[in-house]
C-alpha cells in the first residue's frame, strides 16, 4: 500500500513570498490533516478535512494560510505571505475514519520550509 505522498520535500523562500505544498493521501482515506511541526516541538494541527469539507481549522492562521482539498483527494496548503516564524516542517496525514480507534493515522514525510 502506497503511503502519504508530499511534495516538495524541501523549500527555501524569502519572507513575504508565497509557497504551496501538495499532499496525496492514501487511496480511499476520507480524512486528511495538515500539521505544522516547529523544530523541537510536536506536530500541531492546522486543518482537518473530511472528504472535501473542512472539519477543523481553528488553529489555521487564516490571514496568511489557506488549504483546499478539491474532489476529496489531493490537498494543497498555501502560505501567502510567509513570515520567518513559518519556518517548520509541514506534515500531511490521512486516515480512513475520523474517529479512532477504528483506524490509524498515517503521516507523510513532510515538507521542510525555511523562510529567510
Amino acid at each position: 500500500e502506497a503511503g502519504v505522498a508530499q511534495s516538495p520535500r524541501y523549500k527555501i523562500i524569502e519572507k513575504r513570498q508565497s509557497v504551496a505544498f501538495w499532499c496525496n493521501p492514501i487511496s480511499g482515506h476520507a480524512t486528511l490533516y495538515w500539521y505544522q511541526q516547529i523544530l523541537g516541538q510536536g506536530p500541531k494541527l492546522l486543518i482537518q478535512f473530511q472528504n472535501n469539507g473542512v472539519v477543523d481549522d481553528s488553529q489555521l492562521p487564516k490571514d496568511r494560510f489557506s488549504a483546499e482539498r478539491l474532489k476529496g483527494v489531493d490537498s494543497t496548503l498555501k502560505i501567502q505571505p510567509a513570515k520567518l516564524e513559518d519556518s517548520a516542517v509541514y506534515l500531511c496525514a490521512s486516515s480512513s475514519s475520523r474517529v479512532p480507534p477504528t483506524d490509524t493515522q498515517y503521516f507523510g514525510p513532510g515538507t521542510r520550509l525555511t523562510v529567510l
Partner: protein
Amino acid sequence: LAKTTQPISMDSYEGQEVNITCSHNNIATNDYITWYQQFPSQGPRFIIQGYKTKVTNEVASLFIPADRKSSTLSLPRVSLSDTAVYYCLVGDLRDSWGKLQFGAGTQVVVTP
C-alpha cells in the same frame, strides 16, 4: 483535553528494554492512550494504542494501571534503529484524530 507529561529524553544501550512513562492525571472516562514514534526527517508513525490494562503488538507493549493516570510504553531489546522521539497522546474516543495533541515527546537515544 488531558495534559500529558513525559521525560524529555532517555538514553539506552542496544539490547536493553526501554520503558517510557507518561503521566496523565486528569484523564477522562472516554479518553484512550496512543503512542507515536518519529524518526528524523519522517512523519510520526502510530505504534500502539490502549484504554486499560495491557496491549502488546509486534513493536511495543503498553501498560496502563487501573487508575489510568499514567501509562508506560515498553520497547523490548532496543536496537540503534529505535532511536527516535516518542509521543504520548491522550484523547476522547468520540473525537477525531485531529483532536489529539502532541507534546514535545521523549527523545530516546540508543547507543552500541
